[in-house]
């Protein structure tokens, strides 16, 4: 217990990278999820095809493999070495964006066809249709599973320890365990608490967003389906 301040300090040194990786990953995930999700609904077969390759490729391979590939193999192929944190954010975004694309696609498709037809009848352009009618309604279906996805992403930031990113897990493994072996249980206890708190923060923000999104439609928020394995 007496080592607690030092433990907290060392783990605290890892927090910035954990948070950066999480936020960076989330931003990239959102961009790719909506981008790829919309492309998956394109009328053009080749556009859907290429997007499908991206989605299935990243969903079908292991995140660790993707991480090692982008960090160790890509530099050999293109001659450009990514900084570990950037490589990590890239993989987090690409991987979770692929899962997110399915969520977005499914949610957009679940908006009743009548809405789409109503928008056409009002002479809205395709972009306006999407932005003003379809997406606001799809958003309510997207946010709960996205909450789960983001928490998955937070948990995945720990894997970045394997490519030397000094985030919380790496700090625990490389710095604390070798030097504070007697406090093993305490160290892991604190680490668990850190991740739980971060997960709670994500959920809090997402719940507020869900309420906002539902409020725009005059509705109450929807609960995520536990059978939708992400």
């Amino acid at each position, binding site marked *: 217990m007496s080592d607690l301040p030092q433990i907290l300090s060392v783990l605290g040194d890892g927090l910035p990278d954990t948070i950066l990786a999480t936020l960076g990953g989330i931003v990239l995930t959102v961009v790719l999820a909506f981008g790829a999700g919309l492309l998956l609904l394109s009328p053009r077969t080749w556009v859907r095809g290429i997007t499908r390759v991206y989605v*299935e*490729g990243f*969903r*079908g*391979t*292991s*995140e*660790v*493999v*993707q991480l*090692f*590939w982008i960090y*160790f*193999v890509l530099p*050999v*192929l293109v001659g450009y070495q990514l900084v570990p944190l950037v490589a990590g954010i890239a993989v987090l975004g690409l991987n979770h964006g692929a899962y997110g694309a399915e969520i977005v696609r499914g949610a957009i498709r679940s908006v009743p066809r009548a809405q789409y037809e109503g928008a056409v009848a009002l002479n809205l352009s395709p972009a306006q249709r999407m932005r003003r009618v379809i997406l606001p309604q799809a958003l309510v279906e997207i946010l709960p599973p996205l909450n789960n996805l983001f*928490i998955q992403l937070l*948990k*995945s*930031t*720990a*894997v970045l*320890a*394997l490519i030397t990113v000094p985030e919380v*897990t790496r700090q*625990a*493994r490389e710095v604390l*365990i070798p030097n504070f*072996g007697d406090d*093993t*249980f305490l160290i*892991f206890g604190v*680490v*668990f608490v850190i*991740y*739980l708190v971060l*997960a709670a923060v994500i959920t809090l923000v997402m719940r507020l967003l869900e309420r906002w999104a539902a409020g725009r439609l005059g509705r109450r928020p929807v609960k995520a*389906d*536990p*059978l*939708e*394995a992400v």
Partner: protein
Amino acid sequence: MPLWDWDYAFSILPDLLLALVTTIEITVLGSVVALLLGLVFAVIRRARIPVLDQILWAFIEIVRSTPLLVQVFFLFFALPRLGITLSAFVIGVVGLGVHYATYTSEVYRAGIDAVPKGQWEAAAALSLPRSRVWTGVVLPQAIPRVLPALGNYVISMFKEVPLLLAIGVVEVVNAGREIGSATFRYVEPYTIAGVLFLLLSYPASLLVRRLERRSVRT
């Protein structure tokens, strides 16, 4: 220095395939743990025993919401301090199994909740013993419904096995790393590892999707 050397690629393939067997073994064993333990969790939680339920809920929430890697490290470093020595392989199976059991328990709960209340009542009207209500009426209706979700988690587990390289388990990616570090050529080993995962998990996910479509129709 060519980007891709086919001869090299084929020469390392056998070692990688051997390591893939380890990956599959861990997946299978981990799945058995996850599928059985998750069911136990779900049934116990349904019984709503006062103190036990809260403890179980807390355990499930903590394990579900924290990284698998941290849990694996925890088992790897903390168990020896309790005098328990297990191989990295076993720790990997236990870590994966318990982690995914927390996911499958939610899936089972959803399946069990979906069984109409009338089924429980009809079983009670026949005075069937509790164990038979579960094994003869409820679970046979709950489990088929959630097989696709369970299948997806098994596939996810398969893809998370490489995490175990952090505690020295020689699965595919670790084998690739060892091979690469000897020759300084990482392109082929890691790419082949990626392809191997894709070759196994993509068809599996298609199968699960087909199962999903079929169960929606019944």
